[in-house]
């Protein structure tokens, strides 16, 4: 079974600075997908970014980028130029190709400080 680990329960960063959230996973699959979701205080789950395991190029979405290390089974999220609106819980998630089940990590609570 797949597991997803986020070793940082809480983090904080000053506004406009850069922060990196860690995620590691365990799987025997060769093809899969990884996602980062954001859950602000409103509790709405929002997709931030996704990465396909067969692509070596790291995904980027505006201020959000990932560092995907397949051999190390690591999938970290970098937030550049942090904004107050980035304050949220961030969840890392794994999905097998053609799988119906998404496995989520326990989350990292990020606070952006003014």
């Amino acid at each position: 079974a797949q597991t997803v680990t986020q070793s940082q329960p809480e983090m904080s960063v000053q506004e406009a600075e850069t922060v990196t959230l860690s995620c590691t996973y365990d799987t025997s699959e060769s093809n899969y997908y990884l996602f980062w979701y954001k859950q602000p205080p409103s509790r709405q789950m929002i997709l931030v970014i996704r990465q396909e395991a067969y692509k070596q190029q790291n995904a980027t979405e505006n201020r959000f980028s990932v560092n995907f290390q397949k051999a190390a089974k690591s999938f970290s999220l970098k937030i550049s130029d942090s904004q107050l609106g980035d304050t949220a819980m961030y969840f890392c998630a794994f999905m097998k190709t053609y799988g119906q089940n998404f496995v989520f990590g326990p989350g990292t609570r990020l606070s952006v400080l003014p």
Partner: protein
Amino acid sequence: SQTIHQWPATLVQPVGSPLSLECTVEGTSNPNLYWYRQAAGRGLQLLFYSVGIGQISSEVPQNLSASRPQDRQFILSSKKLLLSDSGFYLCAWAQDYYNSPLHFGNGTRLTVT
């Protein structure tokens, strides 16, 4: 575009009462549907998922059940609520192709008193 509706947004129910949470998806057909539960400050626990009408897979034995009476409708139920059923319930859908992400509803905060 696709949208997902989940209701009610909040619910306070006494122990032993029944429960029905409903979720509908618009703008797509034959989606995979999911119910997750999130305890306060915790991660997401998958409760049920469905790949088609009448097809329900349960991930965790519990006091809850799910049904999918129509293609884009997913219902979470209980005959008798327990205190431990309190939490934040999220419905989600994904298109049935290989790299579809999950799309979530706004959630239901359930408090069992």
